[in-house]
């Protein structure tokens, strides 16, 4: 056999300035950070006067563990604004894909400046704002987890909305009929599982375009629940009085200042949501189940050739996703409203979809995204109480706009499961 001396790779000359992706990315992130910073300074710093003070309430009603915070409005806005600009400068120095978090930080600083500015010469219910955000984040996070369970195996799920709506309906009537919230919850989960199974069968067995399949489920669930509401619930209104789960407290932990009441005094949905996020964040990356799920979503043929049944893994996860969507759906009737109304999910399933993408198909990411989206909804109430002249509609748009920004890759493109949406057929 011939032996050859191999030449090293020709070294590129280093006197050439290249227009690389990493550089453009850094410039974009920095630009957005600057924008957030300048906006905070101009909108909040310059419009406040030096003698204005913002008071933020840090405790839930009837509790007094930590003192409320008083801040000079203008100085706070300036500090936060310059903080965001500093992050932008730093982004230019560290040219690295990870600087996307800098943009998140800058946006957070901007939001905080807004919260403080809105409470100038007044009192802002800061604890209420955060606690409300967690509340609102619960169904979004559950929906996002439902979505990522499907999509991690390569099955696109835009039907979270329909699955949650159907489950909300199923949970409400069974809980009303049996008088048991727990049976209602179980039935919600089963309804979700059923719709998950339908999605699985049409996208895996019948190989229907998964977006078409998802559209079918969304329209079908909306049509059917609306039809049944008019047909059945209007006449038999006692079938639509399920009641709601009461919150309960975890002793000792609930006494932690601020975080205690925030995290350890909730109803069953909140605990289940946090539990699922923590468990899945571990299980996806450290169990046999997780490894196989991810392999099927990334390279189904590779999984097939080592003897993993792609179909089985996909069926199982899409049904599991349906069940989690079922829990999320039951939140609407049994965790929040105490009754079923037509189209009561009202787009939350699509916000969950957004949260899944924003959270980059990771459970913790999805939770963070859900919290941000919940915050932007709750901020609406907070500002309304303070009589701020910001039209609520624009805050309510924020999750959607932010998601567009994220998928557009303006701040780093999310890494999608490679086989997402692809039908897999094993050989003849």
């Amino acid at each position, binding site marked *: 056999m*011939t032996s050859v001396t191999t030449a090293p790779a*020709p070294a590129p000359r280093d006197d050439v300035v290249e227009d690389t992706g*990493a550089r453009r990315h850094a410039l974009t992130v920095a630009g957005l950070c600057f924008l957030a910073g300048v906006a905070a300074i101009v909108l909040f710093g310059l419009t406040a006067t030096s003698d204005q003070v913002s008071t933020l309430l840090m405790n839930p009603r009837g509790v007094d563990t930590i003192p409320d915070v008083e801040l000079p409005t203008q100085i706070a806005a300036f500090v936060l604004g310059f903080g965001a600009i500093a992050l932008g400068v730093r982004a230019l120095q560290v040219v690295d894909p990870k600087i996307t978090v800098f943009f998140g930080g800058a946006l957070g600083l901007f939001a905080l400046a807004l919260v403080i500015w809105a409470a100038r010469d007044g009192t802002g219910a800061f604890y209420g704002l955060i606690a409300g955000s967690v509340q609102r984040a619960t169904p979004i996070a559950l929906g996002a987890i439902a979505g990522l369970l499907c999509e991690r195996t390569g099955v696109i799920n835009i039907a979270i909305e329909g699955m949650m709506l159907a489950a909300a309906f199923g949970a409400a009537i069974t809980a009303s009929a049996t008088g048991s919230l727990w049976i209602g919850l179980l039935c919600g989960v089963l309804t979700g599982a059923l719709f998950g199974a339908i999605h699985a069968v049409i996208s895996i067995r019948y190989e229907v375009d998964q977006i078409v399949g998802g559209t079918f489920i969304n329209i079908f669930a909306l049509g059917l629940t609306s039809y049944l509401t008019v047909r059945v619930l209007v006449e038999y209104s006692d079938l639509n009085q399920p009641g709601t789960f009461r919150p309960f407290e975890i002793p000792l932990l609930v006494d932690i200042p601020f975080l205690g009441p925030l995290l350890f005094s909730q109803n069953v949905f909140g605990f289940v949501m946090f539990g699922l996020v923590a468990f899945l964040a571990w299980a996806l990356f450290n169990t046999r189940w997780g490894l196989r799920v*991810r*392999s099927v979503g990334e390279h189904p043929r590779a999984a097939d050739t*080592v*003897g993993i049944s792609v179909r089985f893994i996909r069926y199982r996860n899409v049904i599991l996703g349906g069940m989690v969507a079922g829990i999320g759906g039951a939140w609407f009737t049994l965790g929040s409203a105490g009754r079923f109304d037509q189209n009561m999910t009202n787009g939350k399933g699509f916000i969950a979809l957004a949260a899944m993408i924003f959270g980059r198909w990771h459970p913790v990411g999805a939770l963070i995204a859900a919290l941000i989206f919940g915050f932007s909804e709750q901020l609406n109430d907070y500002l309304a109480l303070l009589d701020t002249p910001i039209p609520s509609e624009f805050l309510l748009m924020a999750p959607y706009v932010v998601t567009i920004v994220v998928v557009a890759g303006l701040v780093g493109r999310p890494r999608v499961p490679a086989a997402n949406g692809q039908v897999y057929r094993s*050989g*003849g």
Partner: protein
Amino acid sequence: MRVELRGITKRFPGVVANEDVNLVVEPGQVHALLGENGAGKSTLMNVLFGLYRQTEGEVLLDGVPASFSSPADAIDAGIGMVHQHFMLVPVFTVAENVMLGVEPTSAPGVLDRDAARRRVLELSARHGLDVDPDAMVEDLPVGVQQRVEILKALYREADCLILDEPTAVLTPSEIDDMLEIIRRLADEGRSVIFISHKLREVRAIADTITILRRGRVVGTTTPDESDEQELATAMVGRDVQLVVDRSAASPTDVVLRVSDLRVRDERDQLAVADVSFDVRAGEIVAIAGVQGNGQSELVSAIVGLRRPTAGRVELDGTDVTGANPARMVELGVAHVPEDRQRDGLISSFPVSDNLVLNLTGRSPYSRGIRMDRRAIRENAERLVQDFDIRTSSIDAAVGTLSGGNQQKVIVGREMSHTERLLVLSQPTRGLDVGSIQYIHHRIVQARDQGLAVLLNSSELDEVLALADRVIVMYRGGVIGEVSGEEATRDSVGMLMAGARA
């Protein structure tokens, strides 16, 4: 393990991929399966590996009939396969990829990563594979990825190893290493099936050679009993004539000038590093090299499909760096793309539309925004005649044509409009010999008509047959240039392997 295939037939709707194939692989032997692309080698092995189910025939392992309904069954029976397209999850580590499907666990369902890593390290050391279990697969060079594939099979204690075109993506020196590894695996008592269409490798490694043509076994031999010419003849079914009749070139003005061109790939990695060369009217310049050394990116940058990050491309003295493909067509540049199914054709469109795919905007095919159907049909009828495109009708979807005829559609279209520069990437890949000869003939004709021709080919024989000058690329740079007369298998092969002359 002794593997025997008896009377295997595999039919797909409308196609017989394998017909009555008999094959015996003895333990400790390397059995080569030789055949052209499309001869049915991979299908046969996918049957053995449980990915496809045979229509007729049976598989015997150590004399016992075996029936596989999935790869899992085949793996359990001790068969391992290294696929032509790697079956590795790019975002997993080596250890994760190796253990996938047979994961060791510390508690029920919980991965025992340490056990997997230890096992990978141990196997890697024992077989001289030199693989880091914690490396992310997408960051590894292809040669190493291939060793990961072998590790996967060894991890599952395979007694029979199928290697499907294992050398297609390797450099000559990596090929030498790979052949050595394969020999050692066989010497330990495994049976190895080595699939290839490269004669020299097959003769270097095989104990027994079985030749497939159009799904049938056309002969079984050993390296000692046969020479390359015989093998080639058996493989293609007629005497191979890769020598093209052509006179010496008479190059004139410089048409294409590339200077200090730098191009990055999709992942923002440097693919072409400061490359410079010229192509003159009336000559064929070939870019040779093992696939993946920057040739594709270089060609993409020249024809306007990829924006270079630095450097210049000039056409007839005009700077056309970063011009779009439409502008290049206007300037008289034609390009036969590397991946005809993906880039060159729209398979659901009729032949006639595909013959004007990049020309619809110009006269006579359209006036304003209105397309002139009649002109398009007339053009199609003419080119089908001229280029001997075998199709049932010019309205047939181009996807229903055979590979050779699809390529003639592209070549016909491109030659119908080129005025200055003809760029061809892998123009004959996967084609039958008849089509190859025809296309080679047309390329030489184009040169003789005064076009500048740039040929990007990883088929050394094609390069040697056609080129007036050969530029060899290695790791993104030009490692050497050889004139057509001086170019030999050895001189160019050495450069392709990265050895400076």
